[in-house]
């Protein structure tokens, strides 16, 4: 999925440093927005020839007269090319927020645009839809709300047969949905959920990806857990529709898996599951096995593409992957002897230990997972010994991070308890000195002391 997107980047005039700087800025802005609970992002499809970086914008801001003129031409022009051209000019102007404001303030403008959207002239229809799409990208909710008269038609066209058009309508809907609750309050009774459920049967990958996007925006809404997801909300309910089954189908690993589509539906599932509305329902549809198999498939793909030693680089590009993966592993192993047994029998302990140097957060999580295994008793600890575990622990005891060391001490305690032979080797490998480093640390003192006693008595 990532390589597909990145492959479409063209070399720009900007240097790599400039790109990195911009990315860091965007990232910082996103983090800030998230903390303020204002995280909104939209997709924009633009088919114009790209403007050269550095030059001024190709399209100019349009004034009221010009907007009126273009609308009139589009509506009443005699030649089709002329009408289409007028809409193209309008669309270009609408790339600017100022033009968008001018447009929505003009009386009758949306009505005209909707008329063109629903005309039988296919190319006019398409251009009108593109104008709407530009408007949907606005960051002003007044602009999104000005598009309300068009939503019933956007939904109607989801059951048409032109896949490009459907794709455009879906992205437009997705953008409008995320911008304003007023839009969602209208779209739900207008039947957006059944419309999406019908549309998800499309064979076109581009349509499916667009649908996933629109759906993810709907599920991200604040009111989603009460009003959109639960089965009790009748016709506007996601869980009561066939959408979950179809989503899971699109996440099945195999030759038919499309990364762009899978990404969108994975996010949809994430929002549904986080809402904690009815996860047993999803599990009943096979969510766990599908997602588990998919994870394995993806991990296998990563293995194949990355050279040995570059795996960590990959994780640096995707910093959320490791913590979230380990969190999953924790939840799987915490109360499950069979998952812990699987971890052991599949020889996954050593790979996990290799992750320890990545970061403190990752270290703590790896150690927690190992504790989950060790705390199940002697049968489990026997499988952890002998092996790379003890050397790894001695290594983490040299860390300065209190949490990492604390978790190491917990694991050592369990190992000593259920596998007493480990104590001797620990002593031989200067374990006591490793412990001494931390005996002044308030949060660690008691445990350090207890382990020292155990070691000396053993």
């Amino acid at each position, binding site marked *: 999925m990532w390589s597909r*997107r990145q492959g*479409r*980047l063209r070399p720009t005039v900007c240097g790599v440093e400039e790109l990195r700087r911009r990315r860091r800025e965007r990232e910082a802005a*996103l983090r800030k927005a998230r903390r303020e609970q204002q995280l909104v*992002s*939209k*997709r*924009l*499809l*633009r*088919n114009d020839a790209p403007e050269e970086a550095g030059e001024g914008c190709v399209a100019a801001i349009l004034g009221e007269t010009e907007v009126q003129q273009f609308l009139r031409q589009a509506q*009443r022009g005699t030649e089709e090319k002329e009408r289409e051209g007028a809409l193209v000019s309008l669309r270009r102007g609408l790339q600017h927020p100022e033009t968008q404001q001018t447009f929505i303030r003009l009386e009758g403008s949306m009505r*005209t645009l909707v*008329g063109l959207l629903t*005309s*039988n*002239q*296919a190319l006019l229809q398409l251009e009108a839809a593109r104008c709407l799409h530009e408007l949907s990208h606005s960051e002003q909710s007044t602009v999104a709300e000005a598009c309300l008269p068009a939503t*019933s038609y956007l*939904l*109607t*066209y989801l*059951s*048409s*047969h*032109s896949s*490009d058009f459907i794709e455009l309508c879906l992205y437009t809907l997705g953008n409008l949905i995320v911008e304003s609750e007023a839009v969602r309050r209208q779209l739900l*009774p*207008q039947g957006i*959920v*059944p419309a999406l459920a019908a549309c998800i049967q499309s064979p076109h990958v581009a349509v499916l990806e667009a649908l996933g*996007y629109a759906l993810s925006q709907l599920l991200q809404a604040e009111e989603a857990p009460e009003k959109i997801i639960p089965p009790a909300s009748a016709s506007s309910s996601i869980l009561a529709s066939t959408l979950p089954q179809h989503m899971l189908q699109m996440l099945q690993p195999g030759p038919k898996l499309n990364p762009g589509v899978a*990404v969108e539906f994975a996010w949809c599932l994430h929002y549904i599951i986080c*809402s904690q509305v009815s996860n047993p329902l999803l599990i009943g549809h096979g969510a766990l096995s599908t997602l588990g198999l998919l994870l394995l498939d993806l991990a*296998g793909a990563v*293995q194949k593409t990355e050279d040995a030693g570059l*795996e960590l680089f990959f994780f640096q590009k995707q910093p*959320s992957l490791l*913590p*979230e993966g380990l969190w999953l592993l924790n*939840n799987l*192993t915490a109360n499950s*002897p*069979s998952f812990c*047994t699987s971890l*052991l029998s*599949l020889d*996954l302990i050593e*790979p996990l230990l*290799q992750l320890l140097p990545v970061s403190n957060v990752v270290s703590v999580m790896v150690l927690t997972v190992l504790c989950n295994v060790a*705390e199940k*008793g*002697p*049968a*489990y600890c026997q499988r952890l010994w002998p092996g790379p575990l003890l050397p790894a622990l001695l290594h983490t005891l040299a860390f300065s991070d209190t949490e990492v060391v604390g978790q190491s001490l*917990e694991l050592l*305690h*369990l190992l000593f*308890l*259920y596998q007493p032979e480990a104590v001797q080797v620990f002593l031989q490998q200067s374990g006591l000195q490793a412990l001494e480093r931390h005996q002044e640390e308030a949060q660690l003192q008691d445990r350090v002391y207890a382990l020292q006693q155990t070691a000396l008595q053993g």
Partner: protein
Amino acid sequence: MQLPPALCARLAAGPGAAEPLPVERDPAAGAAPFRFVARPVRFPREHQFFEDGDVQRHLYLQDVIMQVADVPEKPRVPAFACQVAGCCQVFDALDDYEHHYHTLHGNVCSFCKRAFPSGHLLDAHILEWHDSLFQILSERQDMYQCLVEGCTEKFKTSRDRKDHMVRMHLYPADFRFDKPKKSRSPASAEAPGDSGERSEGEAMEICSEPVAASPAPAGERRIYRHRSVSELFLKPVLNMCSVLRILGCTWAAALLILNSERIPSTICFGQGAARGFKSNKKKTKQC
């Protein structure tokens, strides 16, 4: 992290996990000062734990702006005309043609030439406007079905249905695809700004002759729909379009057309290998 090479093979071999090892806990395990307890962790959606992942997601969404500029321009092909009888539109891109066909010729009522965006709306229209059996039945029971996908309500009159759609589904009162039969006012009576009616008129001019004017019982009328006849001409083209799209190679479609002297005989565009579309005279009544 090097995964054991045999891992995937073993997992692909399917479940059949060994019996879990016996669990045997010593109370000393949880004794002070040690405090580890194995427990699953739940995070609410807005928890900071998900910040990195959410930020990645939004960078991904936003990256589309940088990349759409690279989408290759619509591949252009030598101009060709729409093959549907009476339609004189010319195209130089397959995408445009496909959209045109679906919009204008896809779901067209063969009685009154109105075009509809979907089969569902066309079916409703034919039933309500051109089916006398429907009229008879509707005197005795609620027959006017709500047009919103997923809603199963039925009503006595189209007026009642419209009221329902406006009140319950927040649809516009002048929804374009639910014009009541009687109030089709001439274009001049409409406000000048209403291009809806005007375009409808244009649609009627473009799609000319009905392919079968004779009345037929309700069930059989469907087969005379314009769509089924034109499919004979257009299906090969559309199949080629859709197959190539499924292969994700719009470029390849263009290259195929641009580079081939002759269209391969396996792809049939109708009569002969001529590039233009000549209408097949067998089925239509026009000369």
